[in-house]
């Protein structure tokens, strides 16, 4: 296949489950040959719903589809010696191996870092674990909920005196996946100089903590404990409000005089014309009152009227949308963000969200739909490793692949 991906020629073995799968996906989108190495029954993500047409089947899991677009799939039971041996042969020609097992698991299988590095000194191993590979909580039980809780992400979303509200999407895992891909690229640059790979120890808890903006810096600066304030942004610049026919995201982060003149022109500025409001620090400290005034101003206007006028005045207002409207979003459509992915087995095409950037020379691309279980066993184990078809059949019968 003609390829012109930025990461052409990189081979990545992806042994992750849900927790680390995004790392390989984003590399695959840019041309890396990412081979998902699954146990013979399939990656546990394949058992996770929702499923296409709500029909549970390992090749119909939508979470699997989302995280594994553009990857190939090989099945290998590397708990057994023969499977481990085949994995090591794949390691020889790989640049990167990503895993998200419990810390120490690979070592127990005889596939620890020292063994891998001995077989292929240029290999980069990226280990993604809830708390990383070290520390007193290393073996604690965790899921995305627990990790968003321990990162500070949960505590600051929601209303005062009410339970914290969790993010949409598995954001602890997403932070880990993206930072995992960043770490891998850094290790590859270092390898260019040294010729040697290295071991990346990534903590999902820390990745999620890096997905929080203000909590730690504010605490270290002033000792302030950031709290939940509904949709009032911590820095005081935004709050969601009501207008006549729906919601509007108000903002005082644009030019203050412009906004004030507009509101004043409608006779709705109340006390905002008092001189102290021209001080940004005062506005931040008294944001709640300021937004109350804006809510009253907006009450008899339409969302559209406000949002359109605001943007012509360079004020960062928006009408909030539902995620359900995104496939029809005119901006995403104009940018070709969603792509049609054909699933020949199902006789249909489906609309997938893409990657968030347009590279002028090496754009991200649709190379292949997410793989069926072991779809590339013949190609990879037969073709690359040269295992004859009859031997593959035996290995399959024995449950090795």
């Amino acid at each position, binding site marked *: 296949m003609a390829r012109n991906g*930025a990461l052409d020629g990189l081979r990545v073995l992806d042994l992750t489950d849900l927790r680390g799968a995004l790392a390989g996906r*984003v590399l695959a989108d*840019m041309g890396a040959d990412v081979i998902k190495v699954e146990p013979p029954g399939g990656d546990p993500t394949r058992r996770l719903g929702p499923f296409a047409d709500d029909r549970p089947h390992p090749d119909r899991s*939508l*979470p699997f*589809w989302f995280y594994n677009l553009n990857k190939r799939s090989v099945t290998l039971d590397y708990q057994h010696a023969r499977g481990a041996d085949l994995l090591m042969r794949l390691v020889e020609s790989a640049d990167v191996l990503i895993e998200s097992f419990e810390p120490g698991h690979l070592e127990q299988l005889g596939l620890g870092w020292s063994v891998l590095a001995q077989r292929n000194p240029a290999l980069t191993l990226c280990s993604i674990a809830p*708390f990383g590979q070290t*520390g007193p909580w290393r073996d*604690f*039980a*965790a*899921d995305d*909920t*627990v990790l968003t*809780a*321990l990162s500070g992400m949960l505590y600051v979303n929601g209303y005062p005196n009410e*339970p914290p*509200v*969790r*993010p*949409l999407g598995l954001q602890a895992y997403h*932070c880990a996946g*993206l*930072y995992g891909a*960043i770490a891998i*690229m*850094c290790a590859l640059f*270092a390898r260019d100089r040294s010729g040697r790979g290295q071991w*990346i120890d990534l*903590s999902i808890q*820390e990745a999620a903590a*890096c*997905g929080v*903006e*203000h909590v*730690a810096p504010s*605490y*270290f*600066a002033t000792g302030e404990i*950031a*709290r939940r304030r*509904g949709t009032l942004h*911590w820095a005081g610049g935004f709050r969601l409000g009501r207008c006549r026919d729906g*919601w509007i995201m108000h903002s005082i*982060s644009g030019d203050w005089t412009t906004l004030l003149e507009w509101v004043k022109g409608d006779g709705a500025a109340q006390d905002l014309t008092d001189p102290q409001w021209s001080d940004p620090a005062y506005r931040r400290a008294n944001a709640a009152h300021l937004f109350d005034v804006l809510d009253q101003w907006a009450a008899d206007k339409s969302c559209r009227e406000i949002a359109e006028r605001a943007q012509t005045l*360079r004020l960062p207002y928006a009408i*909030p*949308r*539902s995620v359900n409207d*995104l*496939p029809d979003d*005119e901006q*995403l459509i104009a940018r070709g963000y969603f792509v049609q992915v054909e699933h020949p087995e199902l006789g249909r095409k*489906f609309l*997938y969200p893409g990657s*968030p*950037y*347009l*590279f002028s*020379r090496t754009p991200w691309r649709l190379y292949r739909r997410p793989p069926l279980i072991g779809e590339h066993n013949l190609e990879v184990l037969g073709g690359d490793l040269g295992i004859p078809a009859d031997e593959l059949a035996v290995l399959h019968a024995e449950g090795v692949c």
Partner: protein
Amino acid sequence: MALALEGIRVLDFTWVVAGPAATRALADNGAEVIKVERKAGEFVIGTRRAGLMADLNRNKRSIAINMAVAAGVELAHRLVKVSDIVVDNFSARVMRQWGMDYQSLTRIKPDIICMSMSGFGHSGPRAHHVSYGPTLQALSGFTMQMADAQGRPAGFGYSYADMAGGYWGALAALIALWHRRRTGEGQFIDLAQFEALVSVIGPSLLDLTVNRRRQPPPQWNSQEGPAAPHGVYRCRPEGEDADRWVAISVRSHSDWRRFVAALGSPQWASDPRFRTLFLRMQNRDLLDHHIEQWTTGQDAWEAMHILQKAGVAAAVVSNAEDLCVRDPQLGARGFWPTLELPGGGRTPFANLPFRLSETPASVRTPAPEIDQDRDWVLGSVLGIERAERDALLAAGAIYPD
């Protein structure tokens, strides 16, 4: 010890949060990041010495250049000639106005990489709209979808959009640098922060496009396999602070047995309505009521440890103090390295969430004050001597001390 990105020079026009978060990941790994700034009018929350701006800009250099005069643009062009990548996060028109757009810069340095991290990208109907994080969170559905139990929108009390723009931006820069190292080709990256956010919504977008199922707010319905109990539960106040919570996730039958045992096998747990995961999900309100009876008598940290000791995924919902001071895991892993500040005193910074075994990223120098490194940039980077510097001053390209 060597750093992974040594030898890479980044010319950094970014401001506010998303852009600086992207170049921070590069700087921490050893890239030389030179901020090109305005002398006045910096987006200010706190100072460069403490708080968010200090955190985002550590390990970077700063020079102020007046881009409104020809000599300033010319000076910037000389810096482009010796840089590998130019990054900005202005709305689409700003760099073009300065003659700093990709087309213009390729005439100066044919293999330059330019990355624009604008709100909506350089094309489409919203290309010229202004946005900050909350604007994008409103438009991408996060604000509305993250609703609390009463249905009130509660999406992000901070700009997660900026943190997402940051990790996607760092990754995109590294991928383009990798491609250039392989082929000698530069290119233009048009990253839309809006799309960066949409790209981490996750599999629920596929449930919408494939199954045509409108997505309800996730609340505490698990996004990684059925779970009950699952959510946050109020704990005993700690001193004056009544805002204490523990997050709990129970999935498998053995999780449930260990959970019940950890609570001392209370009578209610043998209620047939809780016998299976399916039943526990059906009777979630009653289940949560019983659990909260237990948690409200517990200290949040104690509850976490009782449950973790039993192997149950549980966590204190960390506030700033829990995160920055009390969390023994982050402390043990060196997640909060400290730096001496120029004015005296030490302050902690958040590390990147991964450790590279051979070339670990590090926090080495505090954020520069604006224009702090002017003489270093002119002298060491461009070889400009005193007489020429005076001429630049006279032309208004740079600023007096």
